């Protein structure tokens, strides 16, 4: 219980009233941060038949129980997993990526484009000067494993704010990664305080295998939504122009777009 109290105190510092108003403003205003808005009840593309019905039932029932005031459980630093697994892509075979890596990501830039008021391109040191958040959370893989790490990074919302906020018609944020991965997220996850672009892990720079120089943490989802090796961010109103048009590489492959499980 005392841990929860500490969390609440921390949250209060982060979420002052003024901050909250700014947050809503950053997203063009009028966007609800609770799970009560039915636009957050279904994935961008609903699958056919009973499978699609089950997808909506899963997503809607969980979103109804959630709000963005609710943080995921944070663990004690003593519980941090040693040898955090490296899963999936561990070193993208991408020429551009390898060139950036050879200079320790000095030339790495994150373009934030699309339906946003002031498109920007930010460097790693810019990101590190922006609001920072550290959280010790559990990574849950869809396959079955779980491990705990401390992640440090910039809230995705702060990056969106720095780019002047989204335009009213924006619905999803598509994040692309080196190595060809991309994944879409709705505003319900984008506005969550624990959704961060992490450049640090367990007090150090993000290791190569865990997605250097920058990875996403969307804590209420399975591992396959936690995109590594981030390349660019695009705010969109529709996901149809990406890959097979289902809103992410995982859902293109036939996994559920919503990975709250």
């Amino acid at each position: 219980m005392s841990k929860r109290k500490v969390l609440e105190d921390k949250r209060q510092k982060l979420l002052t009233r003024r901050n909250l108003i700014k947050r809503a403003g950053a997203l063009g205003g009028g966007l609800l941060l609770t799970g009560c808005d039915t636009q957050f009840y279904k994935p961008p593309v609903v699958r056919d038949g009973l499978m699609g019905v089950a997808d909506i039932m899963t997503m809607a029932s969980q979103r109804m129980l959630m709000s963005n005031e609710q943080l995921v459980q944070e663990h004690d630093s003593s519980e941090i997993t040693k040898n955090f697994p490296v899963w999936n892509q561990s070193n993208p075979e991408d020429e551009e990526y390898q060139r950036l890596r050879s200079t320790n990501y000095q030339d790495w830039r994150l373009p934030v484009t699309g339906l946003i008021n002031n498109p920007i391109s930010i460097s790693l040191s810019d990101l590190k000067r922006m609001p920072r958040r550290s959280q010790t959370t559990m990574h849950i893989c869809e396959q079955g494993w779980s491990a705990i790490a401390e992640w440090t990074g910039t809230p995705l919302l702060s990056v969106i704010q720095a780019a002047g906020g989204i335009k009213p018609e924006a619905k999803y944020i598509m994040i692309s990664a080196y190595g060809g991965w991309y994944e879409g997220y709705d505003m319900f996850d984008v506005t969550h305080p624990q959704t961060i672009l992490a450049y640090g892990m367990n007090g150090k720079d993000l290791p190569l295998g865990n997605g250097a120089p920058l990875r996403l943490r969307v804590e209420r989802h399975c591992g396959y939504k936690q995109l590594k090796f981030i390349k660019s961010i695009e705010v969109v109103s529709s996901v149809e122009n990406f890959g097979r048009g289902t809103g992410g590489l995982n859902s293109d492959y036939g996994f559920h777009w919503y990975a709250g499980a």
Partner: protein
Amino acid sequence: MTKFPKNWIYRHTLNTRICHWVMVVSFMYLLYSGIMIFLHFPELYWGKVGFQGYPAIFKLEDWGISWEEAERLGDRRWGRNYHYMFAWIFVVNGFIYLVWNCWQKKFYLKMLPSREELTVSNLKNEFVRHLRFRRLKTNGVVGYNVLQKLSYLFVLFVLFPFMLVSGFAQMPAFTAISPELIDFFGGRQTARTLHVICSALLVLFVLVHLIEMILAGAFNQIRSMVLGKYEINPEESGET
């Protein structure tokens, strides 16, 4: 060539029969898709964390199936999609069954053991009778026997809810919705392990259920679950 009219009773209502078969189909799919998911990560752990290389309490490798082999056999994409789809069918079906039977007082009338049935000596007799595969004569056949009643109640009100809740405790969304639930199990990996153990208990129940059904007369039993009508003492009605 029967001389005497058969003794038919109406044993299962239409609702019970539909719910039973929907449950059978969804249970089989849940089991199969669960195995498909498990094969893609064929180890079990205890506590909050667990991954390849972390001390496991169960490894399929120890049983002669290597990780690569298991991964080849499994299909987590198919498994995952169908596990969720049939979980919803199972839950909706189970909810209908629960509400209907509570309303009809079926649990109370058919499944709640009486005080006499719950005495130590009766339980012991029944247990020994089951071990010897002896069938009850005459009037005992109509209702459920005490061990049957207890096992049905246990499956319906303990194992099924446990499967559901231990499933929730594995979902990342619940680290936000209710971390207390995950802590209640003692961590995410413990919940996963208990989910698997509980499913093994359900398989055991199904096996015993099938053996009992065959012993009690498979044709008559299956017919009663399909058509509702059940013949009392089938071999006697034709003889005497």
